[in-house]
């Protein structure tokens, strides 16, 4: 089989063709980020263009036009209308194009930490066993998933000195801890 790419733009960059085509194609994709985002939002909510139009009180051709628009042609009202239909709040943000990827990762890590602490606060405030259990189970999943999130791209890296050995991924360390503690309980029971 052929080459692998992480994005369409990366594939276009590597295409065996003239630079003029590549530039135009990349620009076309670059200029439609918002409309694509709206298509994804609609599809992930399981709606057709017609269904969304019905809920928004406009025609299907209007939705089709929005989803084929360049970013400069989409109004804030269009985005608010999608939000209303999909029960989502619109949040708008800016960031400097010079922001480094590592700083973005740190920013999101900070946000994850903030929300995890909020979950802990909720569990403490409510003092409800089912909520406590839900939060505890979420943390167990998050520990595994966040590790996997880092290990998967890391495993694709090649650099001098990196061991050829495969990374051993322990899928559920807390389950293992539980079974150890259960084992200890059983041992205690047996000794009693």
């Amino acid at each position, binding site marked *: *089989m*052929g*080459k*692998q*790419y*992480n*994005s*369409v*733009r990366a*594939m*276009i960059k590597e*295409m*065996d*063709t*003239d630079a003029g*085509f590549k530039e*135009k*194609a990349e620009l*076309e*994709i670059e200029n*439609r980020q918002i409309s*694509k*985002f709206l*298509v*994804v939002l*609609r*599809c*992930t909510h*399981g*709606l*057709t*263009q017609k269904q969304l139009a019905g809920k928004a009180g406009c025609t299907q051709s209007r939705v*089709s036009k929005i*989803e*084929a628009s*360049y970013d400069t042609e989409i109004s804030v009202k269009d985005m608010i209308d999608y939000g209303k239909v999909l029960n989502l709040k619109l949040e708008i943000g800016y960031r400097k194009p010079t922001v480094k990827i590592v700083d973005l990762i740190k920013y999101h890590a900070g946000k994850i930490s903030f929300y995890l602490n909020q979950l802990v606060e909720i569990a403490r405030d409510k003092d409800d066993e089912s909520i406590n259990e839900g939060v505890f189970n979420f943390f167990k999943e998050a520990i595994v998933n966040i590790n996997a999130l880092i290990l*998967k791209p890391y495993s694709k890296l090649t650099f001098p000195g990196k061991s050829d050995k495969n990374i051993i991924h322990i899928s559920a360390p807390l389950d293992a801890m539980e079974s150890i503690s259960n084992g200890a309980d059983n041992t205690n029971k047996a000794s009693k």
Partner: protein
Amino acid sequence: MAEWTIETTGQYDRDSKYYSKKHPEELTAVLDNLDTYLLLLNACAGPFQATAGFIHNEPDGMKAIDQKGSKSRNKLQQTRLYIYAHHEKQILYLLGIGGKSGQGEDIQRCREFVRLIRTGG
């Protein structure tokens, strides 16, 4: 959740080279729609019902992405990019590109690729 990877076939590489020279606007339009499809794959946990006008269901789980939605002033020719999404491997295979006239042959050729992919060939 891990991101999807695109993998090209030799047939796709040849077709895309031809289209970039002979039908650049059509190729740009299908690649733009492919970008949307990839965003959808990355946004959805499993197989999903993509309800965008540019996606067509084809035999053996293949999909065809067409040129619809382009803002070109010229009337674009009917163009189809044949793809196969392998959900277990999270690889989106690009099988080939064709027009409306040779559609039957293109589909048959791409189905052979899909059989190979499914049998791990």
